[in-house]
């Protein structure tokens, strides 16, 4: 079985895709079969992922490559391939596991939706494309799946298509990521031109292997940065992050799966995958491209964390949190902590999915309300949701020892600390940790503590089908830390292809205490600031946030997402729309006018020649014509229209010929 799946890696993405096709062909009423098909597809994917995962444990730096020819053009072959290595295997398991939880959760969450069937088709399709993405052994294949997950994201964001806001958000997501993708595309072309292949690993001649890298030389920086554009778009890095918070217009399971756990992390995965390109020619692990990655990551992480503080929409807070965490991962990759970044990616996948699903459960309980200021007191009404949500919150905030997020975050901080170029990112990241704890505390106080307000009065616990995935993910979020602790950094070692050693002593590290202090500070600050917010009574649901009360200008700046959307609207969009109008105008009036001008000149010329013709050349011709016509009229008299006359003429003619013949001899 093991070897079987390794030689048939394509099956892993193919099964959910096939499930998607099957579901798409179902009628709208076949809800149950749709859900069953989707879940079965996902279970198969999970099973195969695990089977694919197992052999990677057996040897260090395991790598199985399967290349094949897609097509030949001219006499050249275009080859694609799948690769299975620890990075891919770990991603596979995470994606399919989180995916499965979310699929099950969706059955409950989407139960009332009339397009239930279509939803599962899209979801399965996404799952397949995402699995394909992590398995791709060719930048082209990766790009293909990259676009397909983008498509799935587009479809799912705009799933509630009758809402104009959802459609707008979908469009925004599509176009924004497409901007990044164009960079990616260009980078890919460049890479292809340089190395002559897009395969990552191809028995030594792939573009990520030494022979391939040698051909790149100086262009590697540009190629890497262009590819990073794609990652920026997909992973919501500044300045292309604007689509991700808007993407929360989609159903919550979608937000959980695509816009928290998997797809948005694809950018991070991409950078990790083509890391040799980024680090090519680096001194001490520092290259200009990686420096760009670090600073983009830092900017994103801090900016998003700040914005998250001032948001009122429960999902938007989580969305900004995602952006922030993705920034953190980018920083990690940029400073050289690839394994740390990926570990955080995996852990983040679990707890962020958990948080989103929790928020989904909350929204479901509150009849679709998103505004945290209208909730409150849900702690008692939705105990399971509360507990699991709290687990997620603590994992995200990085409460040490028991939660996976803490270990990975410390890993990242440790990597950042040792970045040779500058220490600023390190300190900024520490600030980020505080901010994370702060906004999560704010959210949980608003939602779960205090009295119940407008939206939470009739709230109820979600059905089992929704809470079970929550519990499962919460368990994952906690127990995942087992493989993350410095005492037994198994995952770290696995990703780096080294054997892991167990050493309890490493459990106690200075970073743990730094973290403890920072998180404690963040939570404490939160509790102190929002202590009253939880106790507000139901009449004052829309009251002023304590922070807004203290710093109204700053709060408005943050609440309006730093006016970045507006900035784009005034500049980029206006400019391009103007370009469009200009093009149209040019077409309609300038070019056409030019042509018509030529036409007018031609017409004037024609009139000139006509007059010359009529009065000069034509005069004599007219006379001749008149004469000819007169003659013709005369001759036409002979045509009496009487058939017998003609016949007689014929006969006389024949006679004449006869006589002529006789006369001649």
């Amino acid at each position: 079985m093991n070897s079987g799946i390794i030689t048939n890696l394509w099956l892993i993405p193919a099964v959910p895709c096939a499930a998607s096709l099957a579901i798409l062909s179902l009628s709208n009423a076949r809800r149950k079969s749709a859900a069953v098909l989707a879940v079965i597809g996902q279970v198969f994917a999970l099973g195969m992922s695990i089977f694919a995962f197992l052999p990677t444990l057996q040897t260090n730096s395991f790598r199985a490559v399967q290349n094949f020819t897609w097509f030949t053009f001219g006499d050249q072959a275009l080859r694609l391939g799948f690769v299975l290595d620890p990075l891919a295997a770990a991603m596979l398991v995470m994606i399919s596991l989180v995916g499965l939880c979310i699929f099950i959760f969706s059955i409950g969450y989407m139960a009332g939706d009339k397009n239930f069937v279509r939803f599962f088709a899209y979801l399965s399709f996404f799952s397949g494309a995402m699995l394909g993405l992590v398995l791709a052994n060719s930048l082209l294949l990766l790009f293909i799946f990259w676009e397909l997950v983008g498509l799935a994201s587009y479809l799912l964001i705009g799933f509630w298509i009758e809402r104009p806001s959802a459609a707008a958000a979908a469009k925004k997501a599509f176009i924004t990521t497409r901007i990044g993708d164009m960079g990616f595309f260009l980078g890919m072309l460049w890479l292809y031109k340089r190395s002559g292949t897009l395969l990552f690993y191809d028995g030594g001649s792939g573009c990520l292997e030494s022979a391939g890298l040698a051909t790149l030389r100086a262009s590697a920086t540009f190629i890497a940065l262009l590819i990073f554009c794609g990652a920026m778009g997909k992973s919501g890095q500044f300045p292309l992050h604007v689509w991700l918070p808007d993407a929360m217009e989609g159903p919550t399971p979608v937000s959980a799966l695509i816009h928290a756990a998997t797809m948005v992390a694809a950018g991070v995965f991409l950078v990790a995958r083509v890391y040799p390109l980024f680090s090519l020619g680096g001194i001490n692990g520092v290259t200009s491209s990686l420096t760009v990655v670090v600073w983009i990551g830092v900017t994103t992480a801090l900016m998003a964390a700040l914005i998250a503080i001032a948001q009122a929409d429960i999902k938007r807070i989580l969305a900004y949190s995602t952006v922030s965490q993705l920034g953190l991962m980018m920083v990690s990759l940029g400073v050289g902590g690839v394994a740390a970044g990926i570990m955080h990616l995996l852990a983040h996948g679990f707890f962020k999915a958990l948080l989103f699903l929790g928020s989904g459960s909350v929204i479901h309980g509150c009849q679709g309300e998103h505004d945290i200021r209208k909730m409150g007191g849900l702690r008692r009404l939705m105990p399971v949701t509360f507990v699991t949500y709290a687990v997620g919150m603590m994992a995200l905030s990085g409460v040490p020892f028991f939660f996976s997020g803490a270990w990975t975050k410390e890993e990242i901080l440790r990597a950042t600390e040792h970045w040779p170029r500058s220490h600023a990112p390190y300190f900024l990241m520490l600030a980020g940790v505080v901010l994370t704890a702060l906004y999560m505390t704010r959210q949980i106080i608003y939602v779960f503590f205090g009295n119940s307000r407008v939206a939470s009065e009739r709230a109820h616990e979600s059905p089992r089908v929704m809470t079970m995935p929550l519990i499962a993910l919460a368990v994952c979020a906690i127990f995942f830390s087992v493989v993350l602790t410095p005492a037994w950094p198994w995952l770290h070692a696995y990703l780096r292809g080294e054997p892991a050693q167990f050493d309890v002593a490493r459990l106690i590290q200075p970073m743990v205490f730094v973290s403890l202090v920072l998180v404690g500070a963040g939570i404490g600050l939160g509790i102190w600031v929002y202590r009253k917010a939880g106790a507000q009574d139901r009449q004052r649901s829309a009251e002023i946030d304590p922070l807004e009360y203290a710093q109204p200008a700053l709060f408005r700046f943050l609440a309006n997402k730093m006016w970045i959307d507006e900035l784009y609207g005034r500049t980029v969009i206006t400019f391009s729309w103007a370009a469009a109008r200009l093009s149209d105008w040019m077409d309609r009036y300038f070019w056409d006018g030019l042509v018509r001008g030529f036409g007018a000149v031609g017409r004037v010329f024609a009139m000139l020649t006509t007059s010359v013709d009529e009065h000069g050349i034509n005069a004599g011709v007219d006379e001749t014509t008149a004469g000819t016509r007169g003659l013709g009229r005369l001759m036409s008299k002979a045509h009496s229209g009487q058939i017998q006359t003609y016949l007689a003429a014929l006969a006389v003619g024949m006679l004449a010929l006869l006589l002529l013949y006789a006369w001649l001899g």
Partner: protein
Amino acid sequence: MTPTLQIFLIVSAALFSIGLLAALSRRHAIFILIGIEMMLAAANLNFIAFWRFAPKPHQPPVGVMLALFSIAISAAEAAVGLAMVIVAYRHYRTTNVDQLDQLKG
């Protein structure tokens, strides 16, 4: 007395002339057609006569072939011609060719 080719040709010429007479002298369109048919028949008679009096009539029987085709064509001609007479009659309420002279110059 054995008829020679000449006699046949003279009979055929007479037939032709009678046909011409009908076609030229009579005013009724059907007579004209009858006349034309007779002229064609005279031609056929010539074909057959020439074939019969040729030194080697069988290699191949050209005259007979020509006569056959000519008969087929004249049958077609008669059909179309008569249809035209009917149409003309329907349009102009006359079959007198003197009155059917719309094409005069």
